[in-house]
């Protein structure tokens, strides 16, 4: 009996020790298993203020983009994310960098696209990032890189950040920084390139623009971001974030034409030849400050709000406000109506067509820098399967999202974007 009691006590002791050891060694992983996001979007826009033709001309553009984002848990504390994507666009606007290389039987006009080589291009990006969390999950470090390339532009970026959670994880402070080192391969309007000649030019006198190419071809951006998020009650949480951004180098777009009011006009058919390209200062300092406030109204409706104020030293002030209201339709479906308002003042250097003077230091007829307001209306639907029953090879479908948005700008630009996203998790 004594032996049996002794063995029982010893076994209980081992069991207790084993349980204790299991408990202490178990650590919840930051990411339980690998995830893959497949994202696709289609964007289309129409407008009549193309910057490439000095503020007057078609802005028709379509862009099809796709990305694959893979998140890999390296161990309980570390996650590696790799984001690769390609974006293929066809732009009537950029086709008019050289409006003369299309169909020779058609009249040349800023309101029609040239069918030449400059009408389409691809943008490829590669964005790896690494995140490390402390064992208590109160501190997170991350580092990331960004590489993007298209025909006339190359961008290289690096960044890093630190997040600290405290107050029983009710408060989170984040600090991050990013550096971008970009390089232009400047494409100037065809009529401003050396050796240009065309016997169809009409106008008073000889077409002799006083044009010089840009000395600098680099553009550098430095940004510092500070954010604080706070749980305000069991159903309410918010965050405030602020960026400080400095850009310098070639901030003008080399193929955007400008027409001066104090110079004679020259044409090929209906297409006016450039007096110059836009000239903008070689530095820009931006301060955007934003806030989010989310409220869990009930088990069906959540309110997600966002506000941003922006100012820069080019004279632009802007306000953004948006509200998204996720409505849960059962366990699997969520419906997302959304609205966004945006308004900005014009940049000090913006002039409409034939408004700038050749004696000005800086000028642009890019309507993205003009005064306008914009309204964006969107709807979305998400299907979520927590059991990942739908299979694709070794992955189970976790979520499927579809979003549609319409964007109307007060200067006449209209756009439409459709986004399709899927998330798969590995077994």
């Amino acid at each position: 009996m004594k032996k049996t009691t002794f063995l029982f006590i010893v076994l209980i002791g081992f069991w207790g020790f084993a349980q204790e050891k299991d408990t202490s060694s178990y650590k919840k992983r930051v990411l339980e298993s690998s995830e893959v996001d497949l994202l696709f979007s289609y964007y289309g826009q129409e407008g009549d203020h193309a910057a490439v033709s000095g503020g007057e001309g078609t802005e028709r553009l379509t862009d099809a983009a796709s990305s694959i984002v893979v998140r890999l848990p390296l161990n309980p504390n570390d996650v590696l994310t790799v984001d690769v994507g390609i974006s293929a666009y066809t732009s009537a606007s950029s086709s008019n960098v050289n409006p003369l290389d299309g169909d020779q039987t058609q009249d040349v006009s800023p309101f029609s696209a040239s069918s030449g080589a400059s009408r389409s291009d691809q943008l490829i990006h590669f964005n790896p990032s690494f995140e490390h969390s402390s064992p208590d999950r109160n501190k997170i470090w991350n580092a990331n890189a960004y590489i993007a390339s298209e025909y006339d532009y190359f961008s290289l970026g690096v960044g890093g950040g630190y997040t600290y959670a405290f107050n029983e994880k009710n408060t989170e402070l984040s600090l991050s920084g990013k550096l971008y080192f970009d390089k232009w391969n400047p494409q100037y309007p065809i009529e401003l390139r050396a050796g240009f000649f065309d016997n169809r030019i009409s106008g008073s006198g000889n077409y002799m623009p006083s044009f010089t190419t840009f000395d600098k071809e680099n553009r550098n951006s430095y940004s510092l971001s500070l954010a604080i998020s706070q749980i305000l009650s069991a159903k309410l949480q918010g965050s405030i974030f602020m960026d400080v951004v400095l850009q310098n180098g070639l901030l003008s777009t080399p193929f955007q034409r400008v027409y001066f009011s104090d110079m004679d006009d020259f044409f090929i058919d209906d297409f006016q030849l450039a007096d110059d390209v836009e000239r903008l200062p070689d530095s820009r300092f931006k301060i955007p400050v934003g806030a989010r406030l989310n409220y869990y109204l009930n088990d069906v409706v959540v309110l997600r709000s966002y506000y941003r104020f922006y100012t820069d030293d080019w004279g632009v002030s802007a306000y953004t406000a948006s509200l998204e209201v996720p409505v849960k339709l059962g366990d699997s479906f969520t419906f997302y109506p959304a609205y966004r308002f945006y308004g900005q003042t014009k940049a000090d250097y913006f002039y409409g067509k034939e408004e700038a003077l050749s004696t000005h230091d800086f000028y642009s007829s890019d309507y993205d820098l003009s005064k306008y307001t914009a309204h964006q209306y969107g709807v979305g639907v998400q299907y979520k399967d927590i059991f990942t029953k739908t299979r694709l090879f070794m992955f189970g479908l976790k979520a499927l999202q579809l979003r549609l948005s319409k964007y109307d700008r007060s200067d006449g630009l209209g756009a439409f974007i459709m986004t399709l996203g899927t998330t798969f998790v590995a077994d």
Partner: protein
Amino acid sequence: MRLRLINVKKLGFLFCMLILSSSCVVVKEYEKVYVNDTEMQLSAKGEERFETNFQIYREAASGANGGRSGGGCGCN
């Protein structure tokens, strides 16, 4: 410009108030079921990235929304 600076100051003040308020509210882990809901996340959602991209290209303002605040030309 002065008006704009005042707005920045106001937002800075709000920022400080939020930091100070952090010591007043403590929601326990077991009470976080609502704030941990995926729809309550405070960062921008992944599928919003393409919308954010075109807004960065078409609008003079950018940043403070989880999108890129530099890099890329956005010139088409």
